[in-house]
Every structure is written in C-alpha cells, then in structure tokens.
C-alpha cells in the first residue's frame, strides 16, 4: 500500500549481493512514525537483522544508505546521507553521515533507502536511475581512488549529473576506519567503508528526474524562514567564511585543541593552521552542500612548495587537528595533501591522525622502534612521516597494516603498555575536543553510541559560553554554570537533549550545523518543518520521543554486544592527567562517574550496569526489545528500585 505521508518516496531497495537479487520494498507507515528516517531506519533494521556477535565483515552484516523525509527538499541543509552498519572498528553500532548532493539524487532516482546484505563474488557497483536499479561490474573501478572512480562512472554513462558515493583503496583493503566518500565529502567514521569493501561493493551511482513532494505548500515559505533564521544567527557568518576551521584559534585558546596525542590541549603553532591562513593562502572557492545556507566547504589549492598542485575539497577542523596538532605537524600544505589522500583512498582522517599520533608516542617511548616501522623514524611534527603513514595505512603496507587495525588492536600488538597511549572510546579514536577543557565532552564522548564522538551529543553551549543560545534553549535558570566549560552542572541534561536532537537531525536528515551549532533552530522548528513536509502533525514531545527511541535502541544494540557502564569511560590519560591552559588541574577522573550517574538517572537506565530498563523501553514502545534483552540476561533486575 502506498505510504500516506509525503516527503518520502515511499519505496526502498533491498540488495542481496550474494545472489544479486534486487527487490523493491514499500516503506511501512509504522517505520516512518516510529523512526522517522535515516538514522532511525538504519538503527531499526540493524537491530532486527544483524544477530549478536556477527563479524562486521560477515555477509550477514547490513550496510544501509538512507535518506529522510526532508532530504531533497529546500529545507536548509537537506542534502545529507546517512550510512549505518555494524562497525568493524568497534564491533558495535556504527553510523556515518556525509553532506554533498548524493542523498537528494537517490530520492530523485526513486528510493528512500538501500539495504545491502550478503557479499558479491566480484566487484560491483549499484546503478540507480529513475525507479530502476541494477548491479554492474566494477572490476575496472576496483583499485581506483574515490574521485577517480566517480569521474570514470560519469564518463562511462556520459552524464555529469550522476552522483556517486563509494570507497577507495582503503575500503577495498578493509582498513578498519575506511569511510564512504561522495565528491570529497566523507561518511568517514566507524569504518563502514571497510564493510562496503568486504561486500565487494565499490559504490552506488544515482541519477533521477522524479519529484520529492511535501504535504503542505506552506512548507516552502517556512523553509525560507528557517534559511533566514540560520543566516541571521550570530555564528553563521564566521562558519560560512572559515568553515569548521573557524574553530581552530578559539578552541586552541581554551586549550580544547588536542595536541601531541592529547598530551596537551593547545598547540603553539595553531595560528599557522587556522581558518584565516587557509583563506589567505589556499582558498579557491567556498563550496556548499545541497540547499545549504552556510556552505562550510571549500576548494583549496597548494600553489607552491613540495605539495604544489594539491587540489582538495573541504578540509575540516577535525582533519586539521588530526593531521596537524595531534601529530605536532604545523605544515598546513602537508595537511591539505593529507586531506586529499584521505579522501582519495577513502579513510577517516580523524582515526588516521589518531592512530599516527599514537604510533609517534609509542615510538617516542621506545615501545616500537625502526625495526617495527619499516625503518621510518616516527618523530613528532614531521609532515613527510604523516603522509607516508597515510599511504601505508591505506595500502596496508608494513607498519601501515598494523595501524590500519585502529589504536586498540595496534596497542595489543605493540604491548609494553602501549594501550595507555591509545586514545579511544569503545575502540574508536577520539575526535578533536579535549574534554578536560569542555567538561560536557567528558560525558558526550563516552555516551556516544558509536564510540568516541563529538557528533552525538554535540554540546556546544559551554564551548566558549553561548549565553544567548543557552537562554533560548533552556531558559535563564541554568546560568551561569550551563555555559561554563569547566562546570559539569546541567551538562548531563544538555548532552541527553543533544543526543536526541541529533538522532532526529540524522533521521530527518539535516545537518547539525543549524540544530546544534550554530544553534539557529531547535525542536519547535524541526517539529513544524517535518510535520509540514510529511503531514504527520508531530508535536515537540512526539519528536523528542522518536529521538529517544532511536538512541535507546542503539544503546540496546551495543548492550546486546556486551557494552555496559565499564565501557562508558574516557581513556586513562584523560582521567588522570591534568589538561593545559584553562584546564590546568582538571583531570576528568573525579567528574566522569558523577556525570554518568546523573545521565543514567535522566535516561532511566540502570546505574550499575548502564543498561536501559524495562520501564524506559516500554515507555518508548520497545516492549519486544525489552523481552529480547531479558532473554539474553541484559535487562536490569526488575522491582528493586536503584536510586
């Protein structure tokens, strides 16, 4: 039966790569009401279909490309793609999200989502065009970088409007943090590119001429209003002008800028790798994702020096930190070159920088030596070493083959106390927020459902103290602590709210630029926009419940895989060592457990185990999930009130 909600196409694809069978499935009303789209759809499918303990590289793992009801409309930032699967890096729930123009094209081509399972015998790509889909031979694309593969497909089909999302050599080689790339935009984290590689699936190419309709014409005017609201936000101009790199200097000033593998939170040469330098020396043009009023992306070029000729799209704050300060590298041109390599090979620059910094610190401490590193001297701050290691990781050569496994596995291999330098949470390398200087991140990193991550809770309010936004969102009663980066007070509330808002943003799908930072719009606008698009008449409470449902189901997926409170922890270094600058004297240790207690209480999860309770799951309509968890012995004991 046709779906009665607008915004969606109402159909999705099931692709069994083992048999080559492709089927078209109607989107069920129930799924849209309970899980909204993108991230929600993927979470539900993963929970239902990927059995406990399955190896992420097993054909039984699913890989889901999903859009949401706002994708392809003129709603600001409605161009994002969500990819979901079990992560080969962490062994738990994994997702990643990319901007660009691919996701709208998939909808114009006639599908809300694609669910891949199985494993193809030979390399293939999926070609989707106007309500038809077929698997095509990709042997000529295998071994090619992502940009090159895209260009080849556009040329083969003779259509420049084709949008492609796929893997490079790193995904083919199952680098555990390989990403999925679309025109230099990356769904990078959790290694879903390696899952794609394990299925022998090179990419998805889409082209379409179909409409995306909305329930109410008023949607168009309302979307315009929200565009203006984002443009008028006080933090938008600098985000537009410098992209995420606008953060480099401010974050360095508050010592939130991870340096030398988190030994420090400030980098004395931050000025040399800032947004201002990028604009002055390297900027070619700014670049925007579909329907985005911010356009944080940019094309940059290196015009002289050893990296002359480097031409790359969209270097981000995270990449600048990971390939820069994290490894003590102050050479901006080399970072841009590194960014290009990460995009072309298809690897997550955050994990890449993380694992390189880890190796450098192990080298410094004599845990590994030139005998382990193919003769390379892994000294801090050497740009040539950073670039060489990127190549080796992507190709899994020598030391690169060890580092391609991520910091946890590499630390096990190195031994001799190397795990102390493995800066990860639940197996994923940490992103560029030193939590000692912004304490909301002590919590946000460890409760992120995909491991160490800034993009689940994404608490920005206390970064440098966004008072106006805090008042607009939470009222005056929480000032001043709520905007104080060195206070944990009210942060569990902020993190929980951000996680649910994020789950909805990733399902709608919109960029967190707008919902989280700049904090330009919030629950009321999202509820109204989604309602006008779909015709669902969603209230704020109902929308929040969808976010909470998604987040709880992700947690259950992880608990089912063995995750519990003991895994919700920062690495030891963050717990015991003091931060620098404003974070001097602040280690996370004494604060973490207090924040966790408060967070679990807010979530109504069991404080001892960190597991969602039956009461919470039933309240969210997840009774079946509670039953399953009980059968597995992963439901907190009933009756006894834990306070």
């Amino acid at each position: 039966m046709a779906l009665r909600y607008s915004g969606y196409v109402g159909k999705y694809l099931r692709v069994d790569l083992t048999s080559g069978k492709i089927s078209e499935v109607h989107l069920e009303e129930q799924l849209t009401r309970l899980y909204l789209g993108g991230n929600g759809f993927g979470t539900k499918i993963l929970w239902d279909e990927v059995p406990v303990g399955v190896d992420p590289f097993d054909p039984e793992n699913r890989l889901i490309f999903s859009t949401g009801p706002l994708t392809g409309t003129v709603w600001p930032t409605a161009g994002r793609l969500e990819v979901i699967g079990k992560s080969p890096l962490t062994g738990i729930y994994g997702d990643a999200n990319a901007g660009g123009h691919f996701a709208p094209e998939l909808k114009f081509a006639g599908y809300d989502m694609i669910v891949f399972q199985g494993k193809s015998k030979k390399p293939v790509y999926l070609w989707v065009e106007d309500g038809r889909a077929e698997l095509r031979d990709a042997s000529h694309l295998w071994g090619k970088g992502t940009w090159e593969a895209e260009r080849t497909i556009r040329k083969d089909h003779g259509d420049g409007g084709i949008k492609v999302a796929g893997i490079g050599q790193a995904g083919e080689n199952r680098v555990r943090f390989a990403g999925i790339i679309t025109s230099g935009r990356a769904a990078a984290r959790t290694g879903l590119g390696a899952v794609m590689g394990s299925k022998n699936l090179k990419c998805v190419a889409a082209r379409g001429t179909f409409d995306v309709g909305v329930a109410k014409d008023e949607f168009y005017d309302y979307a315009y209003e929200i565009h203006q609201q984002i443009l008028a936000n006080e933090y938008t101009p600098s985000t537009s002008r410098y992209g995420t790199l606008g953060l480099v200097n401010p974050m360095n000033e508050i010592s939130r800028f991870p340096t030398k593998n988190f030994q420090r939170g400030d980098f004395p040469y931050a000025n040399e790798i800032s947004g201002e330098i990028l604009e002055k020396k390297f900027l070619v043009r700014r670049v925007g994702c579909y329907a985005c009023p911010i356009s944080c992306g940019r094309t940059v070029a290196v015009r002289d020096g050893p990296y002359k000729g480097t031409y790359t799209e969209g270097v981000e704050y995270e990449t600048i930190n990971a390939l820069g300060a994290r490894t003590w590298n102050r050479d901006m041109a080399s970072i841009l070159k590194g960014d290009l390599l990460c995009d072309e090979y298809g690897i997550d620059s955050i994990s890449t920088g993380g694992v390189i910094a880890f190796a450098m610190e192990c080298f410094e401490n004599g845990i590994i030596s030139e005998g382990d590193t193919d003769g390379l001297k892994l000294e801090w701050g050497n740009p040539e070493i950073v670039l060489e290691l990127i190549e080796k990781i992507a190709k899994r050569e020598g030391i690169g083959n060890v580092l391609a496994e991520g910091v946890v596995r590499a630390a096990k291999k190195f031994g001799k106390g190397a795990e102390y330098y493995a800066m990860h949470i639940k197996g994923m390398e940490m992103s560029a927020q030193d939590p000692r200087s912004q304490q909301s991140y002590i919590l946000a990193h460890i409760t992120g459902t995909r491991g160490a991550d800034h993009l689940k809770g994404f608490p920005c309010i206390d970064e440098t103290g966004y008072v106006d936004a805090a008042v607009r969102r939470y009222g005056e009663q929480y000032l001043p602590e709520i905007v104080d980066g060195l206070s944990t007070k009210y942060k569990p509330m902020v993190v929980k709210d951000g996680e649910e808002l994020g789950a909805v943003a990733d399902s709608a799908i919109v960029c967190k630029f707008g919902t989280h930072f700049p904090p330009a719009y919030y629950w009321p606008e999202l509820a109204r926009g989604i309602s006008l698009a779909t015709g669902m008449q969603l209230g704020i409470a109902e929308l929040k419940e969808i976010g909470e449902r998604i987040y709880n189901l992700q947690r259950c997926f992880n608990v089912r895989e063995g995750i519990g409170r003991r895994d919700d922890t920062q690495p030891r270094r963050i717990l015991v060592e003091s931060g620098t600058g404003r974070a001097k004297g602040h280690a996370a240790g004494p604060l973490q457990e207090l924040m966790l207690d408060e967070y679990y209480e807010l979530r109504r999860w069991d404080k001892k185990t960190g597991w969602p309770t039956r009461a919470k799951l039933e309240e969210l309509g997840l009774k079946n999930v509670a039953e399953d968890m009980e059968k597995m012995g992963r439901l907190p004991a009933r009756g006894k009130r834990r306070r």
Partner: protein
Amino acid sequence: MYKRIALIENPPINTCVGCRTCESACSFWHERAFNPEKSRIRVTRTEYGISYPITCRQCFKAPCVDACPTRAIHRNAETGVVLVSEGLCIGCGLCVERCPFGAIVLHPDKKVAIKCDLCGGTPACVKFCPERVLRHIDVNVAAQGRRRSWVESKVGGGA
C-alpha cells in the same frame, strides 16, 4: 530597460557555492514539487569546485524564438521576458539545441520546453540564494556596480 537574473559575485568570499538552493526553490515555485530536473535555473559544477548558475538571459534576439517551428516561444515586448506557450510547444527540442547557454530544457514529464519566466516578477532563486549572488536586475544597472567596484579597487577608494 529589462531585468534578468544576473550573477553578481565578489570573490573570494561571495561567490556561487553550488548549493543548488536556487534549483530547489525554482522547481517548487513552478511545480509544487522539489525536482532539480524541473528547475528553470541550473547550477553547473566543475570537477574543480567551480559553480555557476545558468538561467535564461531573456535575449533580445532570442535564438530559441527563431528556432521554434510552431511559434510557441515569444518575447513579451513590455517586460522583455521570453515565454513558452505550453499548448503550442510540440517538444521537438530545437530551442534546446539552439540556446547558447543551455538555459531552456524539456520538462521530464510534460515534454514541453520550460525556461525562466522570472516567476512573474519576484524570482524564487533570487529570494532563496543564501550567498545573495543572484540578482534580478537590469544588466546595465549591474554594470554600474561593476564600474564602481573596479574603480575603487584599481584607482583606490580612500585610505
């Protein structure tokens, strides 16, 4: 004089960024649905990140008008807007071939020529363009602005 859609950039900051918000807005204004293939403005993005929006120039000696065998395309003498009469269009595509800019295309469902009609006076693309580089302007007036910024940059505008 006659107004058209013009691109007024001020690099490196204010340029077309290729967000295609204009395409999305245009399609909805004309079609009540989002579909870039039905947009009357099209953004071309090169491999090197250059983006450029193209829409009808409302030519004075319009090649599309001359090409049309059924006289479906005409130029409104008062407003200067070149318009397609859907009822007369046979979808032969000659206008599409002749337009030097690729600014006129065939509608994917209706198979008739579609092109920018300036939305009857308040173009949706101009309204939505977040970079504010799209203008609905008389090109000669736009040239005034160009002259001023050129003079200021080359000759100097003060301190």
